[in-house]
């Protein structure tokens, strides 16, 4: 394991095409180890495409994706996951016909369900214990998101990619997720997270990168961006610095 603060993941000059569309136009992004990096930007800026490119679900046509010193840009998705990257996609990717338990069993690929780890997850998300034997398709949106995150953390990962976890959720559930994310940070895991809810982003983020039109247009610390309403307005189109969490 390397030291906190050194770069765990870096993208340089990444171009991604989806079919005939050129979506990412040379993305440069650094994710420091042990920190939570927020990826912000308006809808359609290319945040999800960036996440999917890291996971190998889209292949970068040009540029490098370095993870722990290795270029993973040409690897297949399962091999990228096996390097220690866990992914919570924007649509959550729940297996709805499987039970919560079965979703978790599949996620615990290397060593099976670990009781201690599971207890920790139950403490973060009590709903997981309650709905353990339910078909996951019958969970509410918030519970599905909790399952998606639980799945990503049932085995320790080096890097967690989380794409808009609060999308469409009620404020109370967003609070619960925020607390869980803070607790996750305590474990020292590195997180790259996309979030539209700026109040939440400001609360949990350490560093920040802002995208627009398939490029990174700003990087810095969250504290700096959180304090600078003018910068927020310019980068994110936010009139009110506090947001509405």
């Amino acid at each position: 394991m390397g030291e906190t603060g050194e770069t765990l993941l870096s993208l340089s000059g990444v171009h991604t095409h989806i079919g005939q569309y050129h979506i990412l136009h040379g993305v440069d992004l650094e994710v420091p180890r042990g920190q939570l990096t927020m990826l912000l930007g308006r809808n359609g800026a290319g945040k999800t495409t960036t996440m999917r490119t890291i996971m190998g679900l889209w292949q970068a046509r040009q540029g490098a994706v370095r993870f722990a010193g290795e270029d993973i840009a040409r690897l297949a998705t399962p091999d990228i996951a096996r390097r220690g990257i866990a992914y919570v996609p924007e649509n959550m990717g729940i297996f709805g016909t499987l039970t919560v338990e079965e979703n978790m069993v599949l996620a615990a690929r290397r060593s099976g369900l670990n009781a201690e780890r599971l207890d920790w997850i139950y403490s973060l998300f009590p709903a997981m214990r309650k709905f353990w034997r339910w078909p996951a398709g019958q969970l509410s949106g918030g519970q599905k998101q909790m399952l998606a995150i639980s799945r990503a953390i049932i085995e320790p990962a080096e890097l967690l990619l989380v794409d808009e976890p609060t999308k469409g959720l009620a404020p109370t559930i967003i609070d619960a997720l925020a607390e869980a994310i803070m607790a996750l940070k305590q474990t020292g895991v590195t997180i790259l997270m996309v979030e539209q809810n700026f109040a939440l982003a400001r609360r949990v983020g350490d560093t920040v990168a802002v995208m627009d039109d398939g490029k990174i247009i700003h990087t810095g610390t969250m504290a700096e961006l959180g304090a600078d309403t003018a910068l927020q307005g310019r980068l994110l189109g936010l009139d009110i610095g506090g947001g509405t969490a």
Partner: protein
Amino acid sequence: MSTTRQEGAIAAEPRNWLGFVRDRAAYFTVPVLALLAFLPIGSLPTWGTLTLAGLAMGLMIFIMASGLTLVFGLMDVLNFGHGAMISFGAFVGVSTLVALGPLYLSSGIEMNLLALLIAALAAMLAAGVLGLVFERLIVRPVYGHHLKQILITMGGLIVVEQLIIVLWGPNEIPIPRPQNLKGAFIVGGVVLEKYRLLAVALGLVLFVVLRLVLTRTRIGLLVRAGVENREMVESLGYRISILFIGVFAVASALGGLGGIMWGLYDEVITAHLGMSVMVLVFITIIIGGLGSIEGCFIAALLIGLTNNYVAYLAPKLSLGSAIILMVVVLMWRPQGLLQPSGSR
């Protein structure tokens, strides 16, 4: 906080109940069809005989279609060449029976069944191996291109048919069933043909085994998860392409098993056996819902029953009965009887 979670539970409950009814509705179609058919048929012995014939036919179709629906569901692969495995399995199975002649034609039913078992295993092995070759040479180069898949897998089917003609000759091969498997038990006027009973038993066992594998084993869970969301399975670190090759081989082996069973049912095989039953196999998969084993099972039974009832009630319509059934089902459920997913 705790109220939120309870809200979630309450919100989930009605959906659970609705889902329960919705799923059962599909299951009820089989008994409803059988009961409805009784009205015009009128006579219990005739109805019983037709029903057994329909179930036997349906279960043989299920055997051929069950793996193929997973191939569809898992990798979006349209394999029109599945008929090649059906025909090849039938020919290898029949050749095995010929080689086992004394055993197969002996007067002891245990010997007959042993010969059938060996022939079935040979058919499955041969079809499974052919399936692996097929997957590697024909299917893999065209992942993601449906039109190319249809054309090239059809081409593969024609090539295999021609190979069968080269190896076994152009004539159809008669394959009489042994004495012990001819004839029938008559119970209350209902003719229970022995071979049909055997086909029904085998089909039911296979359904139960497939269900157990899909619900109780890790591989089965992965297959179901992959049918729902392939990308997520890969994001969890599983190499789904390897899983798919395994599923393809099993589907092919089951095609071969169905082929030899169908051949013995007709007591004759031709190189075109596979191509001719593929129409029914495809309709089964479409009616059942792509990727759903339960749906495939129900659809196969519906097709087998409809085929036999219609052949009796309106012989002129019997060729089109499966198509009519498909139209009716798709008007009711455009996605097929059961949907294995929703998230992709």
